[in-house]
Structures are given as structure tokens and as C-alpha cells.
């Protein structure tokens, strides 16, 4: 399985919300451009934490108690890892299916 770093520096799990390149935005000012890049990356991270917390809460939390017990905590950690694994698996397999078929639509109609 081709190993593809689906995250790189962006911290995103291919959530489809690709920000436009900073071209045209603060392009006259490299400081602003850098700022936009950094903040965009931070926001991708934040958004994914929000999303995974929501998903993993459903899987890991029964009745909210006085503290987060170790079983629930382990579940959350596993949940994050498996979510990222899932995302990478999907990207890798999509890449493979696109390589072996001439058109993407072919693989969808399988």
C-alpha cells in the first residue's frame, strides 16, 4: 500500500475545505501572507479537533461522570488514531483505483 502522508504540514484530513492559495491575499506583504498560511493551518487543526471530538464522543462517552475515566480516555485516543487511519486509507485506495482505471467514474460504477 503506497504510503501517503495525507496530512503533511497542513494538519488537514482532506476535509474538502481547501483554502485558496494566498495569492492575491496580502500578496504585497509577505508578513501577511505568512500569517494567513499559519492561521489557515491552525484553523484546519481546530476544525478537525471539533469534528473528531463530536464523532468520538458518540463512540466513547456513555453517561458523563465526575471525571473522564481511563477507559473513555483510551477510547478517545484510539478514536483519533483510527479516524486518521481511515482518512489515509481512503486517500490511498482512491489513488490506487485511479491509477488502475482510466477514468474515476469507472471505479465508482463498480
Amino acid at each position, binding site marked *: 500500500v503506497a504510503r501517503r*502522508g495525507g496530512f503533511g504540514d497542513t494538519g488537514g484530513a482532506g476535509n474538502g475545505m481547501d483554502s485558496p492559495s494566498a495569492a492575491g491575499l496580502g500578496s504585497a506583504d509577505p508578513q501577511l501572507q505568512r500569517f494567513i498560511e499559519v492561521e489557515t493551518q491552525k484553523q484546519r487543526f481546530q476544525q478537525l479537533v471539533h469534528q473528531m471530538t463530536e464523532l468520538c464522543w458518540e463512540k466513547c462517552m456513555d453517561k458523563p461522570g465526575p471525571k473522564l475515566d481511563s477507559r*473513555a480516555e483510551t477510547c478517545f485516543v484510539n*478514536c483519533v488514531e483510527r479516524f486518521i487511519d481511515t482518512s489515509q486509507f481512503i486517500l490511498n485506495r482512491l489513488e490506487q483505483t485511479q491509477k488502475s482505471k482510466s477514468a474515476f467514474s469507472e471505479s465508482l460504477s463498480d
Partner: protein
Amino acid sequence: GMESGFGSDFGSGSGGGGKLDPGLIMEQVKVQIAVANAQELLQRMTDKCFRKCIGKPGGSLDNSEQKCIAMCMDRYMDSWNTVSRAYNSRLQRERANM
């Protein structure tokens, strides 16, 4: 509720015709981002805790419901922090492997 009192008039403090101060813009943007994140967190927390703590809606929130909501809020924050740490660790590991 959380009101954003920051609006979008970045340039209002810079006087007429002068260059916009990028430092000021960046600070204001950071604040707006923080506000947006807090709102997002609150919205999801409210959704989750309502689901966990409120059964058949009565005429008011009774004591047990309020206690549940309070605990739920804290646990949601704990969960959020756990997820944030786990995700950060995973990213570091990915970067180290590249």
C-alpha cells in the same frame, strides 16, 4: 450568548488615507478566529449535552438535569483536550516519518 462585538471594520483606527497596520489587522483576525472557535465549541457542547441530559423536555430544567449538564460540559472539555493532544501527537509522528 456570545456576541461578536468586533465587526469587520479593520481599517477604522488607521486614520484617513494612511497604510493599514498589518500588526493590528493580524491581532484583530486572531481575536475573531478565537471567538469563532469558542462559538463552535459551545454549539457542539450544547448539542451533545442536551442529547445526554435532557430526556422528555419538561416545564423547566430540574436539578438532576442541571447537574448533568454541568458535568457534561466539563467532560466535553476533557474530551476536546484529549482529542487535541492525541491529534497533535499523531501529526508530530507523521512529520517525523516523512
